[in-house]
């Protein structure tokens, strides 16, 4: 006993800067609190109360992140808790973005859960836990912390994907997500193991230090480790060719969860990817950059082209998110301060847009998430013009139309790549943006397409001229993309016109107005306004992303 006591006294606990992990602690604490409340007060606590607790927790975490921001601005970037946690601007940006996304998702989920009659607070508990995983990934300064954050994020998401007990697709989606997700985790872990052997540590700072000190250019172990880590990350951000899971999973999961996957899971994975590769493995750039190049090019092309054929909006959005992943990878490929800040800006704007889009999809899909076909959106502008307008804004934002945040996002990543002489990739990105604009417009035009309320065929009384819409939107793709070959999108034009004029191929069943819960209205309104306001006045957001990058370890 005395021996044990003597040994114990020699343990010097590392200094813990609690502010550096305050948002994570708040998020996790909120999850535990809600877990406790919802199990003790099962009969009393309602979905609304659970949502309120989640939103308040998110707000508290966001406030904590703002406090962090002040501290980081004053003290500069540092690491805490034995070097396992990075406390820098980059981390703070993720600590702010993820709670924001979670709060919005919780508001959307509120209406969804009430509609589906799901009781109990487990959904919100798991969502908060998942968000805390993404935040851990954003702050991680050790590969094993990245891995644990990834697992916290994913394990909660696997369950969330299965959350609709009444819908068999939900379980299937969860199983697919689980099997592929755990395989990718295992690959990632093996990569960590090899990296540990090659550098002697899993700590990102120590790895970087070792690699800077020693020229280990021909080390196969290091190359194998980087390859495996990249495969793991590519699975998580669903970059082609590791994207196979995402269309099925997005389609099968409950719509708010799909939005959460597309935003928070991607934000966490990209944060870790940027930190591990661009920051820690910067000296090994020649080894990993070509792989990122290929991943980016394939994601840009495959995502955009396959999305063209999708008849299901959720599947289309899945391919569109693959396409967006390609754009963010451009920032990774640029691998400099400009690349990081443009990738961060893209992440922030994309997160808001995709959550808003999935909020609209959640509402339209109706009970059981069934009505997600493209035809369900036909005539939406007639029935619910405000909803249609909001969705149009969000889709145009994703397409990169000017006066939306998406324009500058695409412009910045392409600029970052051009400045590092990645001309081929820039051209691929521009072509992809032009193709992508087409399928976003297809949804927008479907909403505004001339179908009467009762599905009785074409109706000439169109509320908005499709041609005007096309004219307003394509320059977005074109000017974001200053050197796009005109043929690329002029070839696409007849297609759009055809689609706008085409009579409905199927008789659409009559749909009345879909009910939109007030909380969902708040989300949709916020996302649409955010997209437009910061699209017109982008300076604060751009500054934030640049500052965050400057304060990067």
């Amino acid at each position, binding site marked *: 006993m005395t021996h044990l006591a003597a040994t114990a006294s*020699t*343990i010097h606990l590392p200094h813990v800067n609690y502010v550096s992990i305050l948002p994570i602690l708040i998020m996790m604490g909120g999850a*535990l609190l809600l877990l406790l409340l919802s199990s003790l007060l099962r009969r009393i606590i309602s979905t609304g109360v659970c949502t309120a607790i989640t939103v308040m927790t998110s707000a508290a975490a966001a406030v904590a992140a703002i406090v962090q921001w002040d501290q980081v601005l004053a003290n500069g970037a540092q690491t805490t808790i*034995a070097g396992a946690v990075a406390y820098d601007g980059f981390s703070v940006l993720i600590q702010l973005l993820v709670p924001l996304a979670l709060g919005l998702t919780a508001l959307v989920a509120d209406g969804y859960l009430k509609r589906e009659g799901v009781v109990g607070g487990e959904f919100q508990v798991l969502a908060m836990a998942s968000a805390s995983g993404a935040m851990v990934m954003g702050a991680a300064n050790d590969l*094993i912390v990245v891995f644990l954050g990834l697992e*916290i994020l994913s394990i909660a998401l696997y369950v969330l994907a299965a959350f609709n007990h009444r819908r068999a697709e939900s379980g299937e989606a969860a199983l697919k997500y689980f099997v592929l997700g755990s395989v990718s985790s295992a690959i990632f872990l093996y990569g960590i193991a090899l990296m540990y052997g090659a550098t002697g540590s899993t700590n990102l700072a*120590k790895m970087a230090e070792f690699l800077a000190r020693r020229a280990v250019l021909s080390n196969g172990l290091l190359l194998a480790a980087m390859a495996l880590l990249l495969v793991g990350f590519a699975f998580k951000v669903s970059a082609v060719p590791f994207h196979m899971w995402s269309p099925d999973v997005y389609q099968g999961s409950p719509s708010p969860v799909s939005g959460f996957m597309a935003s928070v899971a991607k934000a966490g994975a990209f944060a870790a990817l940027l930190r591990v590769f661009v920051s820690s493995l910067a000296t090994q750039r020649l080894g990993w950059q070509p792989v990122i190049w290929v991943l980016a090019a394939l994601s840009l092309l495959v995502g955009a082209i396959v999305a063209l054929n999708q008849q299901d909006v959720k599947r289309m959005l899945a391919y569109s998110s693959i396409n967006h992943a390609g754009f963010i990878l451009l920032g990774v490929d640029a691998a400099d301060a400009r690349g990081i800040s443009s990738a961060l800006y893209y992440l922030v704007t994309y997160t808001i847009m995709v959550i808003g889009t999935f909020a609209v999809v959640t509402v339209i899909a109706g009970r059981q998430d069934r009505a997600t076909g493209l035809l369900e959106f036909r005539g939406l502008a007639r029935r619910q013009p405000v909803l249609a307008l909001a969705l149009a804004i969000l889709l145009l934002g994703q397409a990169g139309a000017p006066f939306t945040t998406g324009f500058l996002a695409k412009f910045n990543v392409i600029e970052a790549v051009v400045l590092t002489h990645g001309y081929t990739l820039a051209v691929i990105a521009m072509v992809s943006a032009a193709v992508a604009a087409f399928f976003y417009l297809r949804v927008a035009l479907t909403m505004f397409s001339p179908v009467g309320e009762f599905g009785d065929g074409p109706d000439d009384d169109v509320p908005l001229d499709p041609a005007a819409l096309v004219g307003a939107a394509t320059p977005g793709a074109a000017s974001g993309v200053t050197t796009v070959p005109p043929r690329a999108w002029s070839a696409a034009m007849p297609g759009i016109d055809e689609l706008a004029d085409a009579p409905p191929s199927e008789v659409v069943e009559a749909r009345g107005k879909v*009910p939109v819960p007030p909380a969902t209205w708040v989300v949709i309104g916020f996302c649409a306004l955010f997209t437009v306001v910061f699209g017109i006045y982008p300076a604060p957001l751009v500054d934030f992303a640049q500052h965050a990058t400057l304060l990067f370890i």
Partner: protein
Amino acid sequence: MTALATVLLWATATHPTLVDAGTFSVSAALVIAGAIGVIVARNPVHSALMLIMTLFGVAVLFLLLQDPFLAVVQVIVYAGAIVVMFLFVIMFLGVDREENLGAEKLRGQRPTSVILAAASLAGLLILGFVGHWTLGAPHVAGPDTGAPNVNLLGQSLFTTYLFPFEATAALLIIAVVGAVALARRPGGEQKVVDAAPGPLAPELDPASRFVVTPPAPGGNEDAEPSGPGNQNGGDGS
């Protein structure tokens, strides 16, 4: 028995290298045989037992690497808890039937998989181990001084790895919450399951459980109307 022990003791004393090599070969053979067994066994129960064999072999390798504590934990946690849970679920679901390994639904999937796995193995071996490889910096997280293994582990768990340690606590809680959320059967669901004839078929005809159900073509169209969506018309309004 005593004779064997004597021989082993003698061998350890005189030929340590030989004994190490022998132990390594035997346990490596166990590990690989077990891994192959997991893949080729038709019955999931056999797969689980083969998995135990692999895990046991890895535990012996941990001993050989002078990590006795890891070896013990490997046996207790992995073989003792995780695989038992697997077996429990296999029995619970009644899926301990033979899988028809001959059937291949996606044409060309097998060869592709084999090529993929072989390529990744070859890539790893060539890149990582056969060719030139250098080790990283030694004892970064703390030197393994040969003091009692457990003390060192504990120390580094609460110092260098404090944050990941706390994160694993969170991970375990989330896994438990997730499992509860998955296992929870909401009140309305029983009705839904009754409404759908598909899932209940095995209950009516126990024999059909033991048949690998061929995926019906056009299963989507068949499944949808009988599914839960029937109750609410699916118009979403």
